[in-house]
C-alpha cells in the first residue's frame, strides 16, 4: 500500500515550501511530494479554466483524493413563481429538516446522489471539485417537469397531478438531473440526435443506479423504471423502462434496438425517445453481470464518461466502443465484463 501523507491535503504552498526547506527528512520528502501534487493540481486548474467545460478525466482520481466527501446543498423555495431567479433559501448544508417535505426530499435526494458519486465513483460533486448543488423547489404553478439548467441549478415542479406529481419524490429523477450536470463537466454531449440521446440515457443509467445504491438493490431486485415515484395517472407506471423501453406507459414508448430508431426533428431529434436504445444496452449489461450494477456496468459507463476519445458529438457506436474499451481496461480484455458489454450493445444492434 503506498505511503500517504496528510500534507497532500491541507497545507498551503507557502507552508509546504517552508517545510521542504526546514523540516526533518520525512517531513521534507512529504512536503516536496505535496508541492509536486499541488503544482499538478494548479496546472490542471489552469487548463480547466481555459476550457469551456473542465474536468480532464486523468485528474478525476487525483482531485477526489485531495478533498471531498461532503456535499454542499442549498434548497430554495420558488413559491410557484416562473421567474428564473433564486427564490428564498430555506435549507442549507447541515441544517435540520424543515416543515416542507419537498424541501427535505430535494435535500435528501441530493445527498443520495452525492453519496453515490463519491462512494462508488470517487467523484466530488458535479464538477469533481465539490461544486455546491442548488435545488429550486415549487417552481411554477402545477409545473409538470424537473430540469437541469446548465447553470448549476436543478428546478423542481410540483406536478399537475395528471402527468407528474411532486418531482422531488424521485431519487432516480434527482440522480438523472444532476447527472446532466456531470455530463456537462465530462463528455459535454451535444443535446441533439444520438449524442443527445446518449446524454439522456447516461442520466437514466446513473439515476437508476443512485436509487439502486440508496436501496441496496441488485440488478435482479431493481425495477429498472425511471420516475415511478413521480408519475401521475396519465404516465403510470413510469416515465421510462430500461428493461422494456417499448412499454413504460401509454404515451412514452421508446425503441429498444437500432432497427426501431425513431427519426424525428422534435425534442432535439428525439433525445427522450432514442435514449431507450442505450438504456436497454445498459440494462442488458447489468443483468448479465448480475449483483450490484454500480460495481460493473456503472463504473464502466463512468469510465467512458471520462474518456477523451469519446467526443461531444459521439453517436451510439462511438460510445459503445468506449464502454468496451473501458471494460477491457478495467477488467481485462477477455473478462466477463468485456463480454457482457459487447453482448449488451449487440443486443440492441449498435455493435
Amino acid at each position, binding site marked *: 500500500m503506498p505511503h500517504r501523507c496528510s500534507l497532500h491535503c491541507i497545507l498551503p504552498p507557502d507552508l509546504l515550501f517552508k517545510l521542504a526547506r526546514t523540516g526533518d527528512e520525512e517531513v521534507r520528502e512529504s512536503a516536496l511530494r505535496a508541492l509536486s501534487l499541488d503544482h499538478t493540481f494548479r496546472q490542471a486548474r489552469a487548463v480547466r479554466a481555459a476550457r469551456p*467545460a473542465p474536468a480532464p478525466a486523468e485528474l478525476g482520481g487525483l482531485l477526489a483524493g485531495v478533498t471531498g466527501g461532503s456535499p454542499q446543498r442549498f434548497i430554495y423555495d420558488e413559491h410557484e413563481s*416562473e421567474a*428564473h431567479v433564486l427564490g428564498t433559501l430555506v435549507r442549507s448544508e447541515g441544517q435540520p429538516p424543515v416543515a416542507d417535505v419537498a424541501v427535505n426530499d430535494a435535500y435528501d435526494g441530493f445527498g443520495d446522489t452525492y453519496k453515490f458519486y463519491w462512494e462508488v465513483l470517487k467523484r466530488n460533486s458535479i464538477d469533481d471539485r465539490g461544486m455546491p448543488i442548488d435545488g429550486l423547489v415549487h417552481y411554477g*404553478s*402545477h409545473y*409538470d*417537469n*424537473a*430540469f*437541469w*439548467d*446548465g*447553470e448549476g441549478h436543478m428546478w423542481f415542479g410540483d406536478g399537475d397531478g395528471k*402527468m*407528474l406529481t411532486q*418531482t422531488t419524490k424521485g431519487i432516480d*429523477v434527482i440522480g*438523472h*438531473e444532476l447527472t*446532466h*450536470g456531470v*455530463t*456537462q463537466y465530462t463528455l*459535454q454531449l*451535444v*443535446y441533439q440526435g444520438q449524442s443527445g440521446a446518449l*446524454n*439522456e440515457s447516461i*442520466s437514466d443509467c446513473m439515476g437508476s443506479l443512485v436509487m439502486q445504491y440508496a436501496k441496496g438493490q441488485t440488478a435482479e431486485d431493481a425495477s429498472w423504471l425511471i*420516475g415511478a415515484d413521480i408519475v401521475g395517472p*396519465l*404516465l403510470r407506471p413510469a*416515465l421510462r423502462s430500461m428493461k422494456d423501453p417499448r412499454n413504460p406507459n*401509454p*404515451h*412514452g414508448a421508446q425503441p429498444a434496438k437500432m432497427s426501431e430508431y*425513431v*427519426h*424525428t*426533428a*422534435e*425534442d*432535439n431529434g*428525439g*433525445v*427522450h*425517445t432514442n435514449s431507450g436504445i442505450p438504456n436497454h444496452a445498459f440494462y442488458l449489461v447489468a443483468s448479465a453481470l448480475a449483483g450490484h450494477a454500480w460495481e460493473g456496468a456503472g463504473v464502466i459507463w463512468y469510465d467512458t464518461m471520462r474518456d477523451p476519445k469519446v467526443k461531444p458529438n459521439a453517436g451510439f457506436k462511438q460510445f459503445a466502443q468506449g464502454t468496451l474499451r473501458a471494460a477491457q481496461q478495467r477488467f481485462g480484455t477477455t473478462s466477463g465484463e468485456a463480454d457482457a458489454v459487447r453482448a449488451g450493445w449487440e443486443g440492441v444492434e449498435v455493435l
Partner: protein
Amino acid sequence: MAGRHAHISLRRTGGLAGVPMEAALDTRELAPAKAREVLDALGSVDLDRVGAAKDWPQGAADAFRYELKVQREEGTQAASFSERQLPSELEPLVRTLMDQAQPARRREG
C-alpha cells in the same frame, strides 16, 4: 398582426418525460373579455422574434420547448421557443392552453 378572431394551437415537447402535449382554442369560443385579453396579449408580442431571446446554455437538459401557431383571416403565424424564451405577456395564454393539453403522437420523419 391585428384581428378579431384567432385559432391558436400549442404543442409542447421535451421535458423530463419527453411526451408531446397539444392544445388549441378559438377566441370565438371564449367569453368576450377573455378573448380580448388573449388577442391583446398576442398583439403585444412580435412572434417572429420570440425564439431569438436568451435561452438556456449548452449543458441544460429536460426543459420544455413550445410551438405556437396563430391562424387568423389575414394569415398564419408560427413561433418556436423554449420555456425560458416565453414572453411574460404570453404566460397566461400558455398556461390556459396547457391546463387543457393532452398527450399527442410523436412527429416522425
